[in-house]
């Protein structure tokens, strides 16, 4: 029987965010928005879900007068993402 895919990662936008963060030290909100093509509201909601699960850490700072939200994958997130990819491979095979 096939193992269930992690529901926190298995959503289009959340998977996009996790995939982008997997090879980056960190990425800011505007970069994630640009790459995923998501709306600010939707992206913000999905980032919060990933952060609540402990898969990413979110840091809010200021660049000059502009607020800057930076996301970084946590070790728990990296492990969950690796497990997700492994499970996905069993689905393909």
């Amino acid at each position, binding site marked *: 029987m096939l193992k269930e895919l992690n529901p926190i990662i298995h*959503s289009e936008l959340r998977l*996009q965010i996790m995939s*982008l963060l997997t*090879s980056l*030290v960190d*990425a800011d909100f505007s*970069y994630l928005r640009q*790459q*995923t093509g998501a709306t600010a509201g939707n992206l913000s909601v999905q980032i919060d879900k990933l952060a609540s699960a402990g898969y990413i850490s979110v840091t809010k700072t200021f660049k000059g007068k502009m607020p800057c939200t930076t996301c970084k994958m946590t070790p728990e997130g990296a492990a969950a993402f690796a497990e997700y990819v492994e499970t*996905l491979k069993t689905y393909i095979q």
Partner: protein
Amino acid sequence: MDSRKSLELISEMIHKSQENLKHGSMRPFFIWGYTTIGVSLLVWLLLKLTGNPAMQWFWWLIPVIGMALTLVIDKKYSKEHLKSYVGKCVSIVWLVMCAACVVMVLSLNLAPSGTSHFFAGKSVFVPILFIVCFTMGCGTAMTGLMINSKVLSISGFIGLAGSIAFMYLHGLTSILAFAGAFAIMMVIPAHIQAAIYRHSK
């Protein structure tokens, strides 16, 4: 969302982040390569015109101009601040190589006149240009190997091996050779690599 679509999405996003990192990744090679060539030619010209050894102090323009340009250009492109784990490792390699180079150059500057090192029973003078070319060659080769760039790996090893020439070259010729070494080791390969990245888009 089915499994195939998930995999496609993962590979698309990873590819996108890698593409973004390629943009501007050759910038440090251009900054430090062109600065070194420019300052070398300036020192060569000043020494040729005046014959005054004090003109050698102009070598310190390399770190001054290089760091100033790095700060200005980093600020200009601060919007594209993205760092991969490979990029972080490359930055650390260059930090260590530059620190090693500065410490060795400083120690040679501060050493008493006529200082030499004994190796295999003979007295050996270590020229500064050899140390700089050697350390920068190491840095270029390591960067090339880490980012999977054949052209930078090969040019780095050429620089590394070619640095031995500075043990034999002396006077004004060595300065011109030094400028040439940086063109071969850093500037030309960086232009080739940047062109490869542009064509792969």
